[in-house]
């Protein structure tokens, strides 16, 4: 162990020992930065200073590097002389550079020099607390280091003033300011444009939860017609309150911990949407722009897809259950039906027993029909696909509507409609459910419009279907509509808005339809507005 530590010591020796003052300044960079910031805040300089930590760090690094550069050349304090050329002094180079930078930013000499005094103070404070006071000694490290730092600061400041007041630069100051002003405006516009272009909604809120800034995506959630840059340039006199998540915001303001969660909000469009909301504090280390950043990412599509997947899963398990029950039930029915028939055959037609069996047969017939619906809904019948014309499907499935005189059926089938790859019987059955539903939604008659068109789906689409060519068939009625809350339930078996018991198997129509369409690799969605009508859209794959 000893050997190793000796060797390490040797290497360090060779690498060059850093002066204790310089190591201290480098180690305590963060401390210096905070110290200066605190002074600046106390004295109100932060009204004009940068808000981001990195800008402050860079200024501390520049000063520390100047001191280190001076130390490299000589460890004696860099005393001043009447003939020193400060503008070309390597130690004061930082001052010259900063003078050029700040003058064009519209910072005054007084302002700069004032804040510079607090930078110097911060460095002196650090030396003060870091090196001990030694009694009975004339010149301690503490004094020497302080003096060294003082002189470097003096040089930087003098170089700064010399550069600032150089004749040629004073004359060109207006030009320089104008050029800088243009650049700054451009820079501002660049970041404003980036902010406005963000596809996610960004809001900056004040302590009261009012909106200070928001980008277009954000503004559009509040006012649909919001334009890009609208909020920035209109400079509203009164800040409007942030309309959502008040409780979450106050909880965030109390804790200050970054939060993110999924919420349902109601934007100006009136269509509820899902957002992933993130809360953050504005990262201003001077606290000039204190506030809360709220970012909304629209995740409605993802949420809907998730919900849809869950529904699919549910329907699928119901399908499996139904298949099992229907299969067994069907076998039992077969036995009953068979034996009733045999018994009847062996009985006298006039006997009461024969009539009893006829009664039983009537109910059996209903049971058979119900069981058949379940078998169709369940996995039993895999589709037997062939290319089938859409008009033929529409014709066959809507033919029964002709019996209803107060119903008008309008067909809008695109001329170039592609044939679909389906089991014709099954799809006709599915479509018939849709027409039946439309019919039942309009007890006083009306128009049913059936429209069909080709559709090219990209790899990612809201229907959760694979990429490819599809045909969309829409059946629209002018009926009572379905409340939003019920729309997701209409494909569930035995869900019905109508009175039960009036018809056996009621509530199976759309469930069967859904199951058949899914088996075909297609999809069905409902769009409905209470009072205006319902449109069922079904998507079927073509070749």
């Amino acid at each position, binding site marked *: 162990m000893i050997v190793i530590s000796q060797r390490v010591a040797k290497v360090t020796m060779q690498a060059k020992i850093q002066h204790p003052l310089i190591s201290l300044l480098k180690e305590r960079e963060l401390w210096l930065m905070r110290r200066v910031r605190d002074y600046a805040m106390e004295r109100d300089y932060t009204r004009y200073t940068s808000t981001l930590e990195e800008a402050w760090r860079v200024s501390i690094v520049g000063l520390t590097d100047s001191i280190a550069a001076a130390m490299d050349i000589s460890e004696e304090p860099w005393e001043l002389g009447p003939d020193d050329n400060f503008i070309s002094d390597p130690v004061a180079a930082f001052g010259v550079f900063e003078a050029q930078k700040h003058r064009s930013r519209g910072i005054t000499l007084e302002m700069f020099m004032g804040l510079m005094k607090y930078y110097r103070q911060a460095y002196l404070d650090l030396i003060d607390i870091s090196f001990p006071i030694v009694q009975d000694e004339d010149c301690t490290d503490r004094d020497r280091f302080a003096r060294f730092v003082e002189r470097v600061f003096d040089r930087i400041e003098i170089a700064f003033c010399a550069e600032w007041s150089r004749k040629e630069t004073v004359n060109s100051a207006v030009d320089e300011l104008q050029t800088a002003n243009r650049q700054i405006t451009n820079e501002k516009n660049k970041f404003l444009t980036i902010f406005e272009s963000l596809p996610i909604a960004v809001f900056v809120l004040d302590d009261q939860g009012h909106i200070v800034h928001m980008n277009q995506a954000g503004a559009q959630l509040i006012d649909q017609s919001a334009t890009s840059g609208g909020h920035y340039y209109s400079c509203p006199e009164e800040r409007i309150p942030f309309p959502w998540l008040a409780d979450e915001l106050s909880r965030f303001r109390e804790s200050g911990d970054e939060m993110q969660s999924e919420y349902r909000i109601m934007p100006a469009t009136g269509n509820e949407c899902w957002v992933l909301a993130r809360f953050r504090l504005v990262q201003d280390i001077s606290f000039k722009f204190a506030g809360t950043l709220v970012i909304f990412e629209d995740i409605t599509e993802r949420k809907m897809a998730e919900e849809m997947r869950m529904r699919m899963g549910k329907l699928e398990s119901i399908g499996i259950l139904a298949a099992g029950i229907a299969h067994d039930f*069907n076998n039992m029915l*077969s036995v009953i039906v068979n034996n009733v*028939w*045999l018994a009847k055959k062996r009985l006298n037609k006039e006997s009461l027993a024969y009539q009893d069996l006829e009664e039983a047969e009537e109910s*059996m017939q209903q049971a058979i029909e119900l*069981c058949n619906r379940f078998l169709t809904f369940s996995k039993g019948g895999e589709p037997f696909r062939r290319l089938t014309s859409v008009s033929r499907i529409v014709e066959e499935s809507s033919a029964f509507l002709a019996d209803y005189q107060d119903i008008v059926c309008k067909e809008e089938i695109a001329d170039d409609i592609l044939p679909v790859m389906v089991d014709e019987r099954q799809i006709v059955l599915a479509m018939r459910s849709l027409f039946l539903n439309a019919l039942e939604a309009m007890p006083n008659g009306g128009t049913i419009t059936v429209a069909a068109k080709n559709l090219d789906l990209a790899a990612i689409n809201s229907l959760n279907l694979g990429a490819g060519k599809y045909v969309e068939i829409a059946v629209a009625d002018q009926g009572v509509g379905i409340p939003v809350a019920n729309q997701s339930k209409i494909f569930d078996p035995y869900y019905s808005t109508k009175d039960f018991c009036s018809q056996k198997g009621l509530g199976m129509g759309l469930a069967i339809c859904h199951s058949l369409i899914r088996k075909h690799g297609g999809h069905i969605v409902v769009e409905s507005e209470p009072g205006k009508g319902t449109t069922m859209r079904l998507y079927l794959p073509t070749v």
Partner: protein
Amino acid sequence: MIDTCKILILCVDDEKNVLRSLERIFLDQEGYEVVTAISGAEALNIMEHQGPFRIVISDYRMPVMNGLDFLRAVQGRWPDTIRIVLSGYADSAEIKAALNDGLVYKLLAKPWNAEELLATIDGAVEICNLRNKDSLPGPITEHPVPKES
């Protein structure tokens, strides 16, 4: 053991009560003898040791070997047997295809109509007799499902 003058019918279903029901249909039918099996494997075994069976009636959905797989095995070894499917899944595309290529003579839906079942069997026997007389070539189906282009 088995009256060889009678027409032998083999019924296959994994439900015993269905088999019992089928047997009861033929209780008072002269000229038929019904044998039952609860799986395709058992049925094949029976066919090997007894028979010959003129008619095989099989359920479609059975564990291990489904009805069509069983009938395919029957077709391979006893091609002259008349093969009938008795199934709840009347819509099945696989059964339709089997009807089309002659694997299945007739599809009867469950629950069956006993009269129709008897008529089907009578018809099958008649065709069988005809075939024996005239040596009709190829597979036979009662009502071939037209193939669509």
